[in-house]
């Protein structure tokens, strides 16, 4: 009797069972098949259509929505436009100081860009033309070398 009480105490307090206790438990479970039969016969609950419809809505709401192709296209177009606008803006900002800036007069202000070389060449030519100095293409030199109209004696006699 005390052995059974001890066994029941172990089951109630979920203490570890000896091999003999475990064997006894298996036998006891075998003898309870009628209860299993009763429990397995419990009714099942069929959910309503409203319940299922609500579940479908919850499932749809839980799904991360894929972006539509139009949204993807519009997004890409917008991004491209924004990048182009930024590039244009940067170009304008870079160009603006050059357009309004004074003509560089010292070597330190000179740049090596092709545009600057052309400006320098133009200024040099203008200076040479004004002062009559410089290379052989200066106006004075060209006047000296210009042969002019070659008058003949006949021409002079006609006057």
């Amino acid at each position: 009797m005390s052995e059974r009480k001890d066994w029941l105490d172990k089951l109630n307090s979920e203490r570890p069972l000896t091999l003999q206790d475990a064997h006894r438990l298996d036998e006891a479970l075998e003898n309870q098949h009628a209860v299993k039969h009763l429990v397995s016969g419990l009714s099942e609950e069929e959910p309503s259509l409203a319940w299922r419809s609500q579940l479908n809505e919850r499932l749809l709401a839980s799904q991360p929505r894929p972006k539509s192709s139009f949204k993807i296209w519009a997004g890409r177009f917008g991004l491209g436009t924004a990048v182009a606008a930024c590039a244009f803006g940067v170009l304008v900002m870079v160009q603006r100081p050059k357009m309004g800036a004074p003509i560089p007069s010292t070597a330190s202000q000179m740049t090596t860009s092709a545009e600057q070389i052309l400006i320098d060449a133009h200024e040099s030519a203008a200076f040479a033309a004004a002062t009559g100095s410089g290379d052989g293409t200066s106006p004075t030199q060209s006047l000296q070398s210009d042969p002019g109209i070659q008058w003949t004696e006949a021409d002079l006699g006609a006057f």
Partner: protein
Amino acid sequence: MALFAGVTRLANREKLDASAEQVLIEQCRRQNFEAFGRIVDAYQSRVLGFVRRMVSSSEEAEDITQEVFVRAFQNMGKFDGRSSLRTWLFRIAHNLCIDSARKRGRAPVQAGLVDDETMETLEVADERWNPESLVLDDELMAVVEKAVSTLSEKLRTVLLLHDKEELGYDELAQMLEIPVGTVKSRLFLARAHVQKFVEEYRS
């Protein structure tokens, strides 16, 4: 929409074999609503039946059961297949029932402990306890329902999942993270409790 195709199949519950279930799981991992609808068809009654007996109200049971399927759908990618889909769904359901009970501050019920005197009564041989001779009428089933509802959550879980949902000892031990011996002892105590209720009803 394909998702709503499942509604039309409510009446004829679908039984899935292992290979068909595996195909559906793979489809569900790619967020296929129709495949998941078939899984819901196959398990909704069983999950709802289990949850209904674990919580206090029908509304709460329906809400928890929906949450079971929503979580299953969201986490299908994490389902590793080490347990069956059925065990996984009942594990989610069990955890949600426990969470719900904690939130509501429900005191744990201690019903189900068997004393020596009760055990002596139950061990008396009785040919009326032959399963074939038991008539499962509505009155008797109401007594069984009452007995189950008065069990502690621990014993009720094991009784319902083993005897009603036919999960094995090992599956239950893995799911509840307890030794197999504890599963068996809880099952024995739960059955003894039900047996005691039925004995009282019959006498």
